[in-house]
């Protein structure tokens, strides 16, 4: 890859030089142009001043009048008609000649006509002639008689006058012609000058165009080489990206692979701890467990980092109660803080601008816990303060979280290394305190994704303050029923002993996970018969009974339990079913059940049930929703759940997204929130494993023509799918129950399930 444009820059430089030269030249030309313009405009004003009478015309008129005067006198003398009237006429003609004479002397003629010496002498000559004869005409006007002799001499004089004026006329013509020629020559020279100038200007424009073209070519070449470079860069970037992806993929795969045996080790260790061990062995086992847990933490961090690097970090927007978030985060750290002799202090605003904000509670808590665990790790016998503040900046509301400790602090150069992957302030730290050094990197990535800033202020030996600021939006306080994740709500919840009769493994896991999350004691029964046995011997506070189970269904088990008078004979029983028809309802109530819940089960519904059982054990309100079968099968049972998931559209079919999709995302979200992502993944895995078995059984039943087991299998599949939010598979299974499946249908179903698996794995 070259960092030089081989042609472009050189060319451009050369062209720039030429352009500069041409610019100088143009300025020079412009100066000349201006001077020529000044010259022309001066001539223009001369022209304006040169508004003059026409000398040629005046002299011609003069000559004509003089000739006319002489001619009249000749006529008078030859015809012998010398009367008063003709003499007066002659005198008027003389006056006209006289006036023409003075005209010649006084008029402004063109081009210095009157400054010509020959003209002046000639005019003076003529003037003398005219003035000399004035007395004769004065006498004529006075009426004095004219003798023949004086008339003859007058005629001679007038003849001379006529010839003299003719001479003047000829001379004037010559002179004016010469002057016209001179003027033309001058004009031509001016035109030549202008033409030359225009030529030069044209030349400079042509040169300019030429250099511009060269520059353009240079720019184009530079652009082309830049483009080529960009292409190369893109290719190398893609290669690097591919390598990076492969690395992340590898890390994720390895993480999963390591975690599976590690979970087994931890499970076994927990079992070991329950057995009687010598003090020494117990210590060893404890060490194994702690190391295993530490290893699991590290792997989880690596996986998280890989996920972030892979660009799979997606934030949600949900209503978060900041107060609860802070309290629960602090509560979770208290145990570890006690181990290192630290005190945890929570410092919240005196008055909230918005206690509830739209954000991603899971990620927010992850960052806070990470910062706090660091603080606890690097502080002993000190104080770790979690401080929340809300600032109203230009961009709106901003949440600032500080985690302040009184620990060892971080030096200047150490601070630069923070937030970089796999870097710790120095190598001895990881030996002393452990950790991958990924924690802060993950935090930074998350905060970047939030569009916020993260940083640290620290003084070595006096402690550090890690802080981050993220933009948040105020949210409406969620419905109290939905405050499931609030420890206070959980704390208020009574701890009941609950029997769950459910044959489907996936459903079992989900319900178990939910109830565990709600801090309930749970017993699982695989079918009605087992449930009946447990309920006879143990006293339960609440029984959740699936209606369709192998061996003995929910209705029968209920009837028998009520009849048997066992330990839980009076315990409220809630039916769980996907068939939410009025008929089924009635059957449940007739059998002695207290209520009826459409599947899939939501945590909100369980929460409500537990509260109600606590308040009125005798009368647990039934879910009165009379939704049609399909909607009941796919929409969450408790509509209040929607408030907790603002991103989900209301579950009405009027929205552009199908309600099933919202329900799906809401459902999956809920499971993931409650069970944690790990458990969710495992749950999905077990669903897919189950589905494979179910599909196999379906194929076998098709081949052997057992319609009854077909329906059961489909029902089962539908239940599991609805439970993990795969509503389309659930709907298809339900539809096949009524139409009766063909082998082709089952293959289609199998394909759908595979596709879902692929999309989950993506």
């Amino acid at each position, binding site marked *: 890859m070259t960092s030089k444009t081989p042609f472009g820059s050189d060319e451009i430089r050369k062209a720039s030089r030429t352009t500069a030269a041409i610019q100088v030249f143009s300025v020079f030309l412009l100066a000349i142009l201006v001077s020529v313009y000044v010259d022309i405009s001066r001539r223009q004003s001369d022209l304006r001043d040169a*508004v003059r*009478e026409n000398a040629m015309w005046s002299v011609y*008129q003069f000559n004509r*009048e003089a000739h006319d005067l002489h001619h009249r006198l000749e006529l008078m003398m030859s015809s012998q008609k010398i009367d008063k009237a003709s003499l007066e006429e002659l005198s*008027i003609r003389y006056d006209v000649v006289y*006036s023409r004479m003075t005209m010649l002397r*006084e008029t*402004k003629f063109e081009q210095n006509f009157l400054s010509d010496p020959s003209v002046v002498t000639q005019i003076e000559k003529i003037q003398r002639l005219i003035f000399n004869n004035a007395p004769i005409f004065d006498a004529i006007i006075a009426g004095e008689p004219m003798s023949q002799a004086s008339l003859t001499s007058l005629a001679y004089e007038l003849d001379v006058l006529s010839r003299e004026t003719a001479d003047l006329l000829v001379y004037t013509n010559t002179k004016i012609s010469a002057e016209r020629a001179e003027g033309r020559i001058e004009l031509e020279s001016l035109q030549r000058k202008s033409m030359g100038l225009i030529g030069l200007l044209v030349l400079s424009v042509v040169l300019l165009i030429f250099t511009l073209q060269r520059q353009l070519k240079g720019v184009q070449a530079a652009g082309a080489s830049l483009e080529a470079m960009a292409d190369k860069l893109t290719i190398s970037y893609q290669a690097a990206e591919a390598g990076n992806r492969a690395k992340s993929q590898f890390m994720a795969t390895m993480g999963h692979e390591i975690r599976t045996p590690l979970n087994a080790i931890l499970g076994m260790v927990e079992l070991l701890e329950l057995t009687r061990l010598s003090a020494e062995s117990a210590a060893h086992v404890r060490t194994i467990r702690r190391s295993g847990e530490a290893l699991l933490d590290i792997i989880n961090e690596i996986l998280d980092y890989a996920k972030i690097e892979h660009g799979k970090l997606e934030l949600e927007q949900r209503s978060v109660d900041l107060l609860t978030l802070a309290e629960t985060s602090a509560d979770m750290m208290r145990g570890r803080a006690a181990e290192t002799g630290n005190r945890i202090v929570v410092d919240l605003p005196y008055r909230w601008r918005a206690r509830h904000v739209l954000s991603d509670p899971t990620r927010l808590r992850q960052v806070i816990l990470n910062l706090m665990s660091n603080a606890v790790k690097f502080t002993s016998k000190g104080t770790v303060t979690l401080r929340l503040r809300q600032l109203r900046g230009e961009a709106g509301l901003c949440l600032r979280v500080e985690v302040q400790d009184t620990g060892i602090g971080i030096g200047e150069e150490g601070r630069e290394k923070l937030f970089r992957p796999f870097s710790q302030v120095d190598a001895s730290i990881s030996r002393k305190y452990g950790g991958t050094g990924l924690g802060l990197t993950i935090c930074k990535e998350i905060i970047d994704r939030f569009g916020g800033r993260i940083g640290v202020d620290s003084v070595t030996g006096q402690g550090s303050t890690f802080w981050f600021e993220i933009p948040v939006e105020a949210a409406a306080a969620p419905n109290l029923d939905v405050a499931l994740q609030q420890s206070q709500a959980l704390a208020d919840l009574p701890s009941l002993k609950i029997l769950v009769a459910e044959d489907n493994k996936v459903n079992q896991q989900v319900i178990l996970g939910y109830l565990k999350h709600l801090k309930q004691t749970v017993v699982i029964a695989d079918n009605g018969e087992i449930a009946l046995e447990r309920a006879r011997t143990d006293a339960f506070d609440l029984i959740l009974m699936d209606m369709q189970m192998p061996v003995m269904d929910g209705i029968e088990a209920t009837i028998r339990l009520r009849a048997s008078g066992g330990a839980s004979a009076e315990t409220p029983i809630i039916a769980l079913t996907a068939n939410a028809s009025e008929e089924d309802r009635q059957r449940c109530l007739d059998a002695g059940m207290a209520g009826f819940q459409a599947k899939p089960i939501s945590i909100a519904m369980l929460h409500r049930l537990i509260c109600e059982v606590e308040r009125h054990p005798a009368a647990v309100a039934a879910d009165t929703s009379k939704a049609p079968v399909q909607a009941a099968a796919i929409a969450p049972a408790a509509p209040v759940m929607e408030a907790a998931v603002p991103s989900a559209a209301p579950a009405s079919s009027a929205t552009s997204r199908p309600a099933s999709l919202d329900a799906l995302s809401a459902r999956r979200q809920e499971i993931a929130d409650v069970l944690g992502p790990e458990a969710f993944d495992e749950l999905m895995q077990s669903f897919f494993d189950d589905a494979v078995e179910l599909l196999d059984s379906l194929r076998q039943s098709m081949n052997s023509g057992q319609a009854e087991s077909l329906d059961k299998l489909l029902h089962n599949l539908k239940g599991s799918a609805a439970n993990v939010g795969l509503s389309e598979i659930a709907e298809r299974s339900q539809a096949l129950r009524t139409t009766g499946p063909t082998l082709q249908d089952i293959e289609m179903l199998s394909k759908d399930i595979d596709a879902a698996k692929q999309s989950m794995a993506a």
Partner: protein
Amino acid sequence: MKRLKSLLAMLTLVLTAPQALALDAPKGPVILTIRGTLASPNVGGTAQFDLAMLESLAGRTAVTETPWTEGKTAFSGPLLRAVLDAAGAKGKTLLVRAINDYFAEVPMEDAGALDTILASRMNGKIMSVRDKGPLFLIYPFDLDPKLYNEKYFSRSVWQIKEIEVKP
């Protein structure tokens, strides 16, 4: 009978003459004759003026440079349109003729739109033929410098003796 006729004539004059007052006959030597379609001729179909008649009409004094005089000169005389109105002249073009039969075509607008005068005096003195008299058509160069060019110089006739009004 004769008296009755003259009475009738007087009556018709009184009745028909709010705008066309009959032009008096000239008393002194005639210095300007107007020919053409005239509403109020005074001598056999033409309107003839002596100096007194002309100088009694509305006029002005133009103090201006001309190509034919040295320095600023004051020309005074009746406005051309006043002279034409007195004769009741109607037409589009005027042929202004001089003693030596030189003539120039002057469009009627030059009389209406411009304060053109038939100057009878130069610097207060009556102009003789030797001084380009008796009448000199002077354009208002003092009011509108744009008129100061050869086009109007050629229309500036001097030694005027008659004006012919063309339709």
